[in-house]
Each structure stands twice: as C-alpha cells, then as structure tokens.
C-alpha cells in the first residue's frame, strides 16, 4: 500500500522512467533506423520530463516574476526549465543529423534496415 502511495505521489518521475526504458529499448532493439531515431527522441523526452518534474512546486506560478513579488516559493524552479530548453534543442539537432545520415544511407544502399546494412558492409569490406 505504501509503495503504491509512493508511486502515485511520484507519478511523473515513474512515468519518465518507464518512458526512458521504452525509448532505450527502441534505440537498442529496433533494426529500422527511423524507428531508432524515434526511440532516441522518446528517451530524451523522458529525461526532460524527469528533470522538469523535479522543479515543480505544488500550486506555484510560472517563473515570470511580477513587479514587487519576491516570495521565491510562489514560482516554480526555473533551473530545470532552462536545462530542458537546452536539451530539447540539442535533441532536435541530433535528430536532424541522424535523419540526414539515414537519407544518404538509403540513397546508397536502398534500405534503412540495420541488419541488411551490416551484412552489406561485411561483404563490401576489402
């Protein structure tokens, strides 16, 4: 009972961890390169969710400070938001790079299945 209570309390981080697992498994297990990229994006989003949920304060406002109000706990913690902002941009850049790479690979080999690709290169090697 206590455990369930705890899980429900921390539902954001628990969800984040489950998503991380899903993304991680897809990044590792999928043979289709496009799906690997999707898995990577899910994994990164999960980490962002974990980070951002740490900065949330029950009943607080967004961190846009009004004139005069200086009670710090009235706002959520701005640090995780900033970090996640950085993370989102980084993950988009990485996705774009890997998608471009996938296009070139398809152009060259006509497939995006990693198994086939690995087999082809083994044959091609000197």
């Amino acid at each position, binding site marked *: 009972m206590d*455990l369930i209570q*705890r*899980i429900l*309390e*921390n*539902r*954001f*981080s*628990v969800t*984040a*961890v*489950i998503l*991380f*697992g899903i993304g*991680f*498994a897809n990044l*590792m*297990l999928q043979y289709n390169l496009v799906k690997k990229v999707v898995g990577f994006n899910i994994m990164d989003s999960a980490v962002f969710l*974990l980070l951002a*949920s*740490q*900065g*949330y*304060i*029950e009943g607080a406002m*967004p*961190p*846009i*400070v*009004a*004139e005069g109000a*200086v009670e*710090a*706990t009235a*706002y959520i*913690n*701005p*640090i*995780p*938001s*900033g970090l996640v*902002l*950085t993370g*989102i*941009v*980084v993950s988009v*850049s*990485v996705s*774009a*790079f890997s998608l*471009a*790479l996938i*296009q*070139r690979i398809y*152009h060259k080999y006509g497939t995006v299945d990693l*198994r086939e690709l*690995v*087999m082809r290169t*083994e*044959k091609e090697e000197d």
Partner: protein
Amino acid sequence: MSKKESAWTRFAAWVNGEHEPAESRLFSMGMGPRKERRPEITLPKREEKQRLHGFLSWYPVASAVIGVILVGILLATVLAMPSFGQVENPTNNEVPAHYLQHTREETGASNAVAGMILNYRGFDTFGESCVLFLAVSCVFILLLRDENNTSQKDLEQAQRREQRRKRRQDVILQEAARLLSPFILLFGAYMLLGGHHSPGGGFSGGAVLGGALILYASAFGQDAIRRFFNEKVYNTVRVIGLMLYAVLFGYYIFTGANGLENHIPLDYGGLILPIDIAVGLVVACTMYGFYAMFTRGEL
C-alpha cells in the same frame, strides 16, 4: 630439426605478412574457445550470414535484459528520490530563489528562465547554439549536392518533380500560406522580441520564424524564397547571428570575470534582448537550412 625449421619458416612467413599470426594457438588457454577470424572475402556467403545471425540473435536478448534491469534500478531510484511538488525539495534551494528575486535587477529580464539561460548560464546556451550550427553544417556535408551524393538521374528526377509541381500548383496551400505567413512571421517576431518578459525567446521564436519560411517555401517553391534568401545571405545571417552572440557574451564574460564594469544597459531586457535576436536568427536559419537540405539539397 625439421619441425623446428618449419616453425622458423612459418615465423618468417608470418613476419612477412603472408600468414595470419598463429594467435589462436598461442593464447588458447588465455581466451577460452577459439575465436573465429574476420571472414575473408572468399568465405562462402552462407557461413557469413550464419555468423551475423548469431550476433543478431543474442544481441536483442542481451539488450532487452539490460533495458529491463536498467528500468528496475531507475524505478527504485526515483521512488527513493525527493517527492514530487514539495517546497522543501533539495532543488528548491538558494539558487533558484536568487534567480527569481534578482533576475530583474541583475539581468533586466522578468522571465527567470530567459534570465537564467541567457545570462547566468549563458555559456551553456552558447554551446547549445553551436550544437545547432554544427548540426546544420553536418547536414550540409551530407546532403549538399555534389558528385558523391547526386547522380545525373537524381538531378533529372528532381527537375521533373519541380516541373510537375509548377504545373499543378496547390491553390489551397498557396492561399493559406499567403494568408498565414505574415501572421506567423509576426508571431515569431513577437516571441523573439518578448522573450525577456514572456514565454518564448530565441529558440522558440526562431523556430516559428523558420517555420514561416518553410511554409512559404513549400507553397511557392524554393525559387520564391531564393529571391531574397540565397546561400550568401543565409551564410552571412547565420554567422553574424552566432558572432553577435559570441562577441556580446565574450565581452560580458571578460568584464564580469575581471571585475570590470560592463556598459550594457539593463533596460529593455539588457543583454537578453540582443542575444535573443542573435539566437533567433541562428535558429531560423538552421530550421530553414534543414528543410532546404532535406528537400532539394541546395539552398
């Protein structure tokens, strides 16, 4: 004697590189079962496939096991971590309090997130802008048309597609683009310029600007964009954006670290506003660059 001689000749041949070194016999006790060599080209195809199949069949199992273990450990970890949404969590210490209380007088931004990423931790954000720059450069290396990645056939195909697009212009898309582009541009500019006192800022505003460009390009073709946004302009804007950031923030770091006075006024967002504009330019260029490279392979 003859045995020794043959050993010597074998060694000589090995030294000359004619034989594979006899590693498997030398170290069989150290490494357990004999490992197979890398397949030669002459190896029959079936064997090669079998070997690969061996690799590909244990690999998923192993990584699935690793994944499950990882998730288990992480679940235990997050349950032991501070509870969700409590004020007394370790993250809510003096640092965010300082940010929230002093962001107005120290950075000139009332949006604490913008103040944090562009002023207190601006070096990280410079690195992040460089990541974008780097990604678009990588995409250029990969997809910019050259003799390696484009054959004559590809060019012809692209031309045919372009002509077909010109013949059958999509009226709905064009009208929508004509109607929406100005508003999207306006909204992007608003987000860009208001980043210091409202949600938004360089990254999202720049992405919206880039989105407007993409919409325009996909409705009217890239030739329409190229009239005012060709490769030269593109490179200039992108480099100027990043250099603006580098120079402004470099000056800020230099003066700050040496205890000098910086002459950056704090009204209208202080350092945040110019850096937001710089970042916005970079992001808009990056997004449009991705689109251009992904569709046609040229700007």
